[in-house]
């Protein structure tokens, strides 16, 4: 291999990115050395098994990816603003929409929600940590290195360009030569391991580690959605693992599962991809539903309306999510009977979803609604998500879908559900739990500006795209003709996209502003919350979560205690607490996986074998590791708790 195939050259945009990445890496290394932060970074973060810190690291990565995926989006919108733009060429555009899609789903939406789950769920159920803290650390680092592997593709080797669905035979060596698709297969594989482990971890955590008195039907709604989401993960991700492994074999070793030669079946890939891919959509939307439920109930100052129905509808949605994957290829020439079946199952998902919408609306009924920033995002979610939902029903009608399939109508639909659902929820959840993580709120005034700019920009960007779709504009084209008459709607759409970018920039500024100027929270309960996470002190609550694990008798546990006048922190008769030790094995093992995967991308088999041996050595060390944690002494607990009370 020549060096100019290893490093991507010849594009000023990519050269700029390469230079800025190199510069910021140097600055980061110098700063860490100058301020002597390496040790802190290592002991407090990299090797940490504390679920809250792991959650924060997930969220930080997700925000970074939102930035990168967002830059991709801006470049695409700029290219499509007017007919015949020459900002990007076809190949570059294809690479950008491929990475935009993959990054937003796999490396932004999922880790953002997994980050929030990590921070919140153990606190909500009154647990000290997740069930398998080591595994949690390992999950994060495999995700991190999977993300890193996928992201370096645009500066090293070249990005994948076959779309985030990577349909075969397009994704085979015959039509996608180069290493881009290898990065796709191995990057997703690596991070998928972490996701699967997270799913197992949270199922066990929620089933086995709930505090005394918290029966399943007394769990907060967010915990419920995380439980169901974890089950979907455990059922769906193995399919992706196998499909990606087959893809890797096709590309690296010339097997022919999906390719044109050797009776490969391109349809097999499409089926496997969507058997994972459709449930994946619910993996990123169900926790969002949980977040909205918590926030709407907190700021309407009422119990969630129809809790049982909410739980039931989440379960039904998760079940249906496995029965609808064929709607992604209604146009594949299925029999009328097959298309009819999948049409109806797909439309059926709107029923439990509709139930949830009305339950949220009636949670507001006879409430005392406080319009805070998290509440704004949650209220904004309802109308926008409904627009996305009803257009989803339209797409589900197979006979009509022949006209929308692969058009901007579809693009608009899934952005309406994914942005109004998942992204709004991520912002809402981050703002809502921010004081729990960092000990101060985000500025409300700036936060409201962020909401309005982003929400209006979002509608200006995506609403015109329904009409573009109905006017016959297919997705993934990099340019169009003047005679197509798509100019004005595209130009409007681009304006909206840039408004969203401004909204995001303001959000990031708000984090900085609030860190400097916002008042610190000393109560641990700044929103007058209802669930247990607000019963302990803030700013990354003590690593053991609760000095004394609370007992629960009602659904909104903390609200119930407040009503009964019980202070969950009154009892200072502490006992020593058992906690897990930090681990260097998680990050190191993941690094070995990264080395092996990176080598495989370029078919450097000796290096891949060395990486593989490294993984096994780590596993052997782990299996002889008898360190099962340590005890926190009563004195230490007293000291930490007193300090939290004084602050």
């Amino acid at each position: 291999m020549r060096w100019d195939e290893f490093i991507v050259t010849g594009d000023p945009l990519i050269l700029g990115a390469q230079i800025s990445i190199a510069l910021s890496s140097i600055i980061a290394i110098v700063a860490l050395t100058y301020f002597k932060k390496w040790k802190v970074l290592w002991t407090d973060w990299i090797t940490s098994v504390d679920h809250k810190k792991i959650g924060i690291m997930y969220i930080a990565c997700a925000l970074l990816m939102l930035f990168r995926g967002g830059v991709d989006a801006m470049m695409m919108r700029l290219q499509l603003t007017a007919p015949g733009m020459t900002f990007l060429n076809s190949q570059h555009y294809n690479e950008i929409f491929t990475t935009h899609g993959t990054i937003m789903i796999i490396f932004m939406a999922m880790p953002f929600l997994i980050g929030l789950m990590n921070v919140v769920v153990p606190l909500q159920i009154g647990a000290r940590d997740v069930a398998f803290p080591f595994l949690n650390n390992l999950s994060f680092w495999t995700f991190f290195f999977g993300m890193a592997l996928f992201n370096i593709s645009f500066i090293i080797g070249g990005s994948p360009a076959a779309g985030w669905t990577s349909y075969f035979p397009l994704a085979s060596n015959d039509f996608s030569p180069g290493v881009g698709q290898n990065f796709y297969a191995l990057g997703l594989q690596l991070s998928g391991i972490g996701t699967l482990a997270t799913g197992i971890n949270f199922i066990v955590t929620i089933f086995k580690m709930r505090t005394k008195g918290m029966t399943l039907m007394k769990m907060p709604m967010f915990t419920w959605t995380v439980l169901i989401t974890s089950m979907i993960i455990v059922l769906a991700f193995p399919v992706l693992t196998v499909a990606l492994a087959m893809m890797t074999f096709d590309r690296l070793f010339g097997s022919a599962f999906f390719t044109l030669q050797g009776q490969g079946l391109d349809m097999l890939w499409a089926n496997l991809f969507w058997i994972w891919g459709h449930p994946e959509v619910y993996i990123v939307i169900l926790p969002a539903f949980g977040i909205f439920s918590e926030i709407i109930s907190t700021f309407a100052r009422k119990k969630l309306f129809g809790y049982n129905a909410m739980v039931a509808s989440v379960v039904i949605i998760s079940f249906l999510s496995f029965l609808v994957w064929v709607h992604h290829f209604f146009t594949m020439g299925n029999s009328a009977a097959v298309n009819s079946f999948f049409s109806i199952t797909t439309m059926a998902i709107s029923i439990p979803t509709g139930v949830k919408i009305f339950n949220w609306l009636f949670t507001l009924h006879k409430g005392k609604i406080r319009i805070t920033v998290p509440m704004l995002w949650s209220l904004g979610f309802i109308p926008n998500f409904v627009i996305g939902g009803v257009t989803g029903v339209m797409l589900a009608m197979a006979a009509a879908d022949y006209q929308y399939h692969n058009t901007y109508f579809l693009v608009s639909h899934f952005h309406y559900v994914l942005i109004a659902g998942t992204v709004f929820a991520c912002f809402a959840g981050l703002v809502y739990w921010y004081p729990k993580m960092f000990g101060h709120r985000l500025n409300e005034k700036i936060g409201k500006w962020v909401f309005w700019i982003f929400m209006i920009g979002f509608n200006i960007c995506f609403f015109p795209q329904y009409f573009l779709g109905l006017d016959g504009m297919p997705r993934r084209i990099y340019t169009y003709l003047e005679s197509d008459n798509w100019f004005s709607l595209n130009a409007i759409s681009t304006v909206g996209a840039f408004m969203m970018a401004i909204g995001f920039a303001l959000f990031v500024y708000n984090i900085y502003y609030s860190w400097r100027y916002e008042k610190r929270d000393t109560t641990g309960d700044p929103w007058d919350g209802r669930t247990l996470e607000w019963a302990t002190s803030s700013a990354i609550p003590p690593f053991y979560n609760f000095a004394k694990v609370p007992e629960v008798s009602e659904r909104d546990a903390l609200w119930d205690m407040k009503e009964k006048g019980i202070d969950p922190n009154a009892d200072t008769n502490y006992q020593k607490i058992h906690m897990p030790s930090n681990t260097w094995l998680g990050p190191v093992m993941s690094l070995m996986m990264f080395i092996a995967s990176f080598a495989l991308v370029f078919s450097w088999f000796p290096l891949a074998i060395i990486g593989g041996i490294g993984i096994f050595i780590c596993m052997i060390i782990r299996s002889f590791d008898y360190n099962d944690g340590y005890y926190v002494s009563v004195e230490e607990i007293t000291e930490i708790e007193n300090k939290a009370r004084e602050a």
Partner: protein
Amino acid sequence: MVGLFLSGCGNLTVLDPQGPVAEQQSDLIMLSIWFMIFIVLVVFVLLTVMIVKYRDRGNNDNYDPSIEGSHKLEFVWTIIPIIIVTILSVPTVITIYNLEEAPEVAEGSVQVDPLVIHATSVNWKWIFSYPEENIETVNYVNIPVDRPVQFKLTSADSMASFWVPQLGGQKYSMSGMETELFLMANEPGTYNGRNANFTGEGFTEQRFLVNAVTDESYDSWVEEVQAEAPPLSEEEYAHLMVPGHAEEMTFSSTHLEFVNHAYDPTYALEKSAELGYEPLNPHSREGKAYEMPKLTQPIDTSRTYKVELDDE
């Protein structure tokens, strides 16, 4: 608002059908749009009422935190969506089945057999074969009006999607397989068709024109092609298998005589390899130097597809 929304619909390609297939689909779409507008309005109104009425302004006399739910209300908003889904399912299923049949010709005229045209997608062009007439076209297709056309879709390489929005919805074309799509035009005219499924670098330009003409002009066009257009040789056809674009072309024989891609998925790969084409990493020096060929009629059969680098 609703009026404004619907007044814009008339100009939208999909809602401006020029044949019975697209018309059925457009009717179904309009039906669903009305239902969806209704649902959206209900939610918007309810949300507005709730926020205005129950916002905390310090005088919430009706605040009642004890409410946990209401079986009656929840039953209502479970059953209404079930009814709506049922109402939408019936016409959907009927239309799905209808689209599998040749569309009915206008009342009063005799139902004729559909015209069979094989449409083959190749990176990044469309090849149309008329087996009965024994003619073949590239990147355009002529059809008679008021006669159902049965397109038999297949692909020589990547999975593409055959779509003529004003005549009807799309279907995928896949290598080693054959899918069928009925379309029909009611009015003479030229309609845009294209590949709607992403197939790589030349995807955007993978378009074609559908010319719907009267029976008489169709017949005379067929005769003219049969008499005047050159036949398609296997050697020439191989050049069409190389990824790249092509001008409109017309031949007086079809490729079905020597290959049907529905039974031979590797044909295109083998032929383009024989001509010296090899897939190139777009980030390598060769990949950057490679220029996508644009074939013109007659095809230069001596041409091969090796890349020459300037600096070597």
